[in-house]
């Protein structure tokens, strides 16, 4: 849900309507771009600008993460590149148990990108940041020649504060843990693919692009013994399970009949020859915590609209280390392996 870019307050008119090479040159045109497009959207006072932003951080531990965003197309049902760039990094901070504090955003823009579109992306970022209670405090812009950049690439880096006593990390996962997901799987990948492949949906599939930091916070603030959190993006749920199983040296078994998958997503996967367990999400969280706390965790998650579809999908076993298996609807078992190759390029 992106705000209307034409409703931006713009202190001075811009001379061009597309990105020019000179906008990245460090001179007058770049100043115009920063003051005309970035700062008004991000709500930053031009007088406070410096080479770095300085933040109050206290004496605790910092969570620190970065991610590049190259999704194509830049606008898709349910979101755009700007929102993805904010939620993606905010979510990564939350997966370490951190309260997100601030973001940096670096833009690589292609000469010829319409400024109106750029303004729209920045406005989306601002709206997403507000929704997460974070600020975008610093950034950078570079411009590359037409034909060398495919529109816009955004890299966001985030910093957050980890409360004392919170230890959320794959090494804490142990046999007997329950595996939960916060909602239905594979939406983002299918939303993007549907635009790329020209699939028409009678009700368009919207990406799940959105924040999950508040879902993480809900579990931690209730005092649950959350062992590990991970947001499945590229490679979907299956990739997360394989990463965690390998990192923690455990085995994981999940049940096909427990997996929440929307009918339209499942159907699109059949047509495209994809397995929804491997399709990207962008607003979901996987949680590992003691079996005894699983029902309570579900109740806490389901209070929030983003967690309404939360479900317990499996459990952690002793071994063999790194193996992830799936119980099919027939009751038989098969590997849920790491994917080979690139199922869906430029998905996030």
């Amino acid at each position, binding site marked *: 849900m992106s705000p209307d870019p034409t409703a931006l307050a713009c202190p001075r008119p811009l001379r061009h309507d597309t990105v020019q090479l000179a906008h990245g040159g460090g001179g007058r045109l770049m100043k115009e771009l920063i003051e005309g497009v970035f700062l008004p959207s991000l709500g930053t006072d031009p007088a406070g600008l410096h080479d770095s932003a300085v933040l109050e951080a206290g004496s605790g531990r910092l969570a620190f993460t970065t991610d590049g965003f190259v999704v194509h197309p830049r606008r898709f049902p349910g979101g755009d590149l700007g929102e993805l760039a904010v939620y993606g990094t905010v979510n990564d901070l939350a997966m370490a148990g951190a309260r997100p504090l601030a973001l940096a955003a670096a833009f690589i823009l292609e000469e010829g990108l319409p400024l109106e579109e750029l303004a729209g992306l920045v406005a989306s970022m601002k709206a997403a940041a507000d929704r997460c209670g974070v600020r975008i405090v610093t950034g950078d812009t570079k411009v590359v020649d037409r034909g060398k950049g495919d529109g816009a690439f955004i890299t966001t880096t985030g910093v957050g504060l980890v409360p004392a006593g919170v230890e959320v990390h794959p090494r804490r996962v142990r046999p007997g843990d329950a595996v939960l997901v916060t909602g239905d799987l594979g939406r983002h990948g299918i939303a993007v693919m549907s635009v790329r*492949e020209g699939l028409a949906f009678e009700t368009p599939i919207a990406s799940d692009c959105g924040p999950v930091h508040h879902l993480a916070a809900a579990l931690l603030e209730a005092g649950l013994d959350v062992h590990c959190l991970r947001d499945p993006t590229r490679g979907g749920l299956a990739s997360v399970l394989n990463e965690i199983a390998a990192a923690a040296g455990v085995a994981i078994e999940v049940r096909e009949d427990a997996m929440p998958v929307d*009918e339209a997503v*499942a*159907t699109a996967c*059949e*047509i*495209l*020859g994809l397995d929804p367990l491997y399709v990207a999400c962008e607003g979901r969280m996987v949680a590992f915590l003691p079996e005894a706390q699983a029902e309570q965790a579900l109740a806490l998650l389901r209070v929030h609209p983003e967690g309404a579809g939360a479900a317990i999908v499996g459990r952690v076993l002793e071994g*063999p280390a790194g*193996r992830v*298996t799936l*119980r*099919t*609807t*027939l*009751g*038989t*078992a*098969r*590997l849920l*392996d790491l994917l*080979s*190759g690139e199922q869906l390029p430029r998905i996030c």
Partner: protein
Amino acid sequence: MRFVDEYRDGAAARTLAEAIRRKVTRPWTLMEVCGGQTHSIVRYGLDELLPPEVSLLHGPGCPVCVTPVAIIDQALAIAARPGVTFCSFGDMLRVPGSAEDLFAVKSRGADVRVVYSPLDALALARELPDREVVFFAVGFETTAPANALAVAQARREGLANFSILVSHVRVPPALEAILASPQRRVDGFLAAGHVCAVMGTEEYGPLAAKHHVPIVVTAFEPVDLLQGILLCVSQLEEGRAEVENQYARLVQAGGNRPAQALIGEVFQGVDRTWRGIGPIPGSGLGLRPAYAAFDAARRFGVEGVGGPESAACQSGQVLQGLLKPMDCPAFGKACTPDHPLGATMVSSEGACAAYFRYRRFAPVEAL
């Protein structure tokens, strides 16, 4: 999904597994022909539900897998040409030729695109009149009507920038070759459901009679495959050798006449070499002389291009049901989906890929 989900029902599958258990009195070896069936069997662990007397061998029903190395090399040569937009189904991109694959050629700047239908490639040819659009027409008889339609339509519209690189193969000659082989261990076949939806079941009657093997036309979902196995095993126990149709909801004995007419208009029977198996007479489809202008191999002058097979790859043995993927020395070591020696490890319907992806460990007991 209607007409899909009900055929994945666990209770129905267990009923059929029980029926098979009650029926068998001695060992039987069945071969499912189609790669899509192989994947379904391995993905759903159907072999775990079967009694030990019933063994399944995986057949050569993967058109990607049986496309000769030489044709892959031709595809690479065409795709690398400036001005060519090379369109293909997704799984062909990682199939190795004698040296590399389409993905490698794409990463060096070639315009290689994944499409879901030859009609998408045809649409591209209309949209891009300055490009030479080539479609990699790999498939069994199932895909032949779509390819025939694309070519017929291109001629009707006078599209000069569209052509296809043909690697079509036919199932009955391959079954004949397997049945005639002295190493044959197959007692009965599950024939490919969608091939038969197009071509009908009449070609299989003489095969069943001549070699005294039951042939059951079977669909792709777990309930279908188990029912097909039950019908096949019942025939074997009763000493019958007939053609039966488990996929009656889609397949008719005469097949689809308009589809056959389209195929007949555009294609003719030719000899084809099957990767890993060798030449099988009359086992392929090629463009008729009237449509020779749409033959990409001819248009781009690559008919002589092609290199040798990998010596380490035993996919030919796998495709004939003579070797199980896990028993190949290269399986999971020198040969994985990320660096495959042969097509069976990379195709979405390849037996080696199915085992690597779903079953690289000893089966866990069913619930």
